[in-house]
């Protein structure tokens, strides 16, 4: 049964091929069947493979063929399933399937229907290849594939040039990361001689001492790649603008799957990070800084999808924080719960936006609680899970685990824990701000249209998962169900034992976190439902407005990059318009052209002149013969 592994990415790839070749000529039902069905089959196969794997949890490799065979570099098209990649594969496939089903109705009126499903299928195929790859080059292939599909799908409505700009921004920023990753692959290959992941990890442990320059370089470069793809500091500027794409795209690519590729990469190559402690700490610090930065930025957004985008950046910061303190399985646990509730949030936001006629501004919405009940309850459940309100939702268990592991991480631990805590407060505030502004209050815009079963079923399924998915990993003071970490232990090492082990400390920290979350909800309620006068005055003061503007524009990062990188480049391109560097070569060409013109003057067409030339030539010839 495990032999079905290679077929899992094959079906979406086949779906892409068919839809790409037929280019919109097929009838709509066929497109839907192929597009959604291919991912459905992949999900089914993933379930079968995962079930077989859970029966006997031994890592399994399947090599389909040798891709390149050149002087020591022999990457294969090979698939590797263990607990880590199996779980990621299952989550990716399942969430993709739900989102494809949702898209069948959401995008049904769009003229690029076939193109949409073609790109989405290619994306799912690339993501599955990325997750299941047994060597880093094949992983890089999937990495680039998802980057390409991200570009194609962000700029899906290409007739508006702003969408093209956003797509290009995404591609270029992630490219910076991809280049770093490629250099990292070069470093790994030239020093360790292979790119197959499992042998690579063994070689690294055998040859590289802890803390030496090479693992630090390799780990830092791979981290660069992860930062680009997962939109962390300093490469986070592309994700908010990527919301220009259709909402299911944002749900799938920029919430649940592609942006977590960086997390997967670091988890996969965790051996390198164990060998490079400075980089490992850097991962945690970057994660903490990013989650705070994005949290503040999300507070002041008025576009519903941008709030969710910053929320994604922030939550991935949590995952990086977990990776950075050595809590590998906690990061993956948070990835799983995040996939469910973030996709849920995006999909329900999509329903709201579409039913209000593509209105994105939350301050133009209001009171949609009764009009859009399905969207309201879905969004609410997603918000509860995101804010990690105690006990009832999946987000609580995963975020709690991360905070506990962060606290236990040596000297830096309490600072990281504090950052995570403040982040949790901000999360609760901004997401419930969205809830209260959009769904409560007076009705401003009337929603139109209907929501069919193809949208309803994914929302319901994801809502259920967002509530119960956390119960696979319950901490000791609440019931002690370590099913998830036991599963992950076969692939990822357990985090180092906490310094002050004791469930009472853990319970206290957990209680503080829970209180903070509820406090955040309360603040949001007061600020945006009751709207007391003193708060209004404080918000409108000039210092406050300046701060709000600063946060809204992503802490000025866009402006910084514009000033330091984009403007000099454009200036240079402008002065190079005359191609002054090429002037030497074009000078040669014009020189030869001038010579040609001069020489052609000598062709007068007159016989006598030619005869004179012959005479002169013969004189010279005789002179040479005579005198030399």
């Amino acid at each position, binding site marked *: 049964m495990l032999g079905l592994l290679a077929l899992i990415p094959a079906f979406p790839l086949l779906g892409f091929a068919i839809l790409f070749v037929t280019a919109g000529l097929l009838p709509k039902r066929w497109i839907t069947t192929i597009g959604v069905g291919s991912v459905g089959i992949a999900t089914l196969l993933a379930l079968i493979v995962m079930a077989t794997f859970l029966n006997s949890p031994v890592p399994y490799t399947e090599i389909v063929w040798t891709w390149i065979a050149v002087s020591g570099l022999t990457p294969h098209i090979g698939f590797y399933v263990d607990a880590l990649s199996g779980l990621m594969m299952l989550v990716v496939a399942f969430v993709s399937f739900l989102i494809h089903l949702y898209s069948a109705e959401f995008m049904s009126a769009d003229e690029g229907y076939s193109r949409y499903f073609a790109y989405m299928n290619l994306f799912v195929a690339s993501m599955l290849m990325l997750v299941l790859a047994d060597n880093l080059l094949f992983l890089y292939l999937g990495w680039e594939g998802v980057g390409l599909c991200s570009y194609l799908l962000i700029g899906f409505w290409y007739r508006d040039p702003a969408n093209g700009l956003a797509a290009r921004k995404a591609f270029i920023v992630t490219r910076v990361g991809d280049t770093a990753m490629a250099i990292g692959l070069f470093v790994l290959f030239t020093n360790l001689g292979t790119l197959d992941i499992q042998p690579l990890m063994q070689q690294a442990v055998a040859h590289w001492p802890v803390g030496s320059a090479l693992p630090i370089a390799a780990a830092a470069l791979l981290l660069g790649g992860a930062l680009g793809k997962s939109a962390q500091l300093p490469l986070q500027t592309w994700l908010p603008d990527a919301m220009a794409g259709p909402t299911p795209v944002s749900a799938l690519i920029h919430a649940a799957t592609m942006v977590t590729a960086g997390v997967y990469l670091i988890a996969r190559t965790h051996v390198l990070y164990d060998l490079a402690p400075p980089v490992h700490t850097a991962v945690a610090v970057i994660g903490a800084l990013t989650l705070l930065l994005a949290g503040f930025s999300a507070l002041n957004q008025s576009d519903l999808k941008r709030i969710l985008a910053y929320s994604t950046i922030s939550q991935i910061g949590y995952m990086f924080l977990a990776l950075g303190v050595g809590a590998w399985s906690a990061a993956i646990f948070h990835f799983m719960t995040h996939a469910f509730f973030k996709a849920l949030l995006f999909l329900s936001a999509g329903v709201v936006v579409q039913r209000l006629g593509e209105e994105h501004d939350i301050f133009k919405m209001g009171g949609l609680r009764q009009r859009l009940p399905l969207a309201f309850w879905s969004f609410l459940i997603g918000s509860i899970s995101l804010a990690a309100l105690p006990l009832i939702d999946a987000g609580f268990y995963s975020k709690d685990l991360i905070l506990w592991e962060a606290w236990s991480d040596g000297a830096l631990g309490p600072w990281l824990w504090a950052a995570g805590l403040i982040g949790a407060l901000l999360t609760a505030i901004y997401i419930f701000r969205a809830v209260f502004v959009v769904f409560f209050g007076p009705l401003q815009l009337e929603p139109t249209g209907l929501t069919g079963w193809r949208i309803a079923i994914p929302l319901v399924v994801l809502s259920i998962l967002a509530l119960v998915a956390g119960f696979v990993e319950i901490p000791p003071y609440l019931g002690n169900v370590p099913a998830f970490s036991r599963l992950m232990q076969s692939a990822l090492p357990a985090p180092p034992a906490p310094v002050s082990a004791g469930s009472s400390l853990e319970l206290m920290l957990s209680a503080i976190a829970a209180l903070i979350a509820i406090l955040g909800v309360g603040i949001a309620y007061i600020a945006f439902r009751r709207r007391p006068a003193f708060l209004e005055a404080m918000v409108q003061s000039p210092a406050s407005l300046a701060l709000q503007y600063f946060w809204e524009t992503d802490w000025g990062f866009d402006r910084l990059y514009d000033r330091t990188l984009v403007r000099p480049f454009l200036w240079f391109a402008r002065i190079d318009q005359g191609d002054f560097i090429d002037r030497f070569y074009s000078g040669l060409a014009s020189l030869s052209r001038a010579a040609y013109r001069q020489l052609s003057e000598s062709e007068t067409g007159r016989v006598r002149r030619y005869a*004179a030339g012959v*005479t002169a030539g013969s004189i010279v010839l005789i002179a040479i013969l*005579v005198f030399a």
Partner: protein
Amino acid sequence: MTIAFYIAAAVAVIATALVIINLNVVHALLCLVISFLAVAIVFYVLGAPFAAALEVIVYAGAIMVLFVFVLIMLNTGGAAIQQERHWLTPWIWVGPIGLSAVLLGEFVYLLWRAPVAAASGVLVQPRQVGALLFGPYLLAVELASMLLLAGLIGAYHLGRTDRRAADERGRMER
């Protein structure tokens, strides 16, 4: 005998100079004939009577007559002389004379460098020439005859006036 040689040489040079200077083409032609006749005398003095005879018969007799025929066909009148005067500006000589002078100088230098023996003064009979022509130079004779054939065909084909072209010119002149 040498006196005859020098007189004939002087006549040849003067006649040739007249050819290239003369404004009237027919006069130039006649001067050329005189030049060829003088050269024939030079041949005879050098002991090549057969060559002298051939020079007079073929060169002066046939080729120059061909020129005369063509001149008659072209029917250029007095206007031609005016044209020639117009073309022969004083300064036109400088380049050609310069180039030729350099060429002549090189030839003379060659002549001066290598010591050349005097003429043997032997009279070469036509019989000897014929023997050579039918002997070692047989192939050359055949090739020369083919060359003459080619010249014949070429001249015949080129000499045919195109009826259309002739009609057009007639129409344009009208």
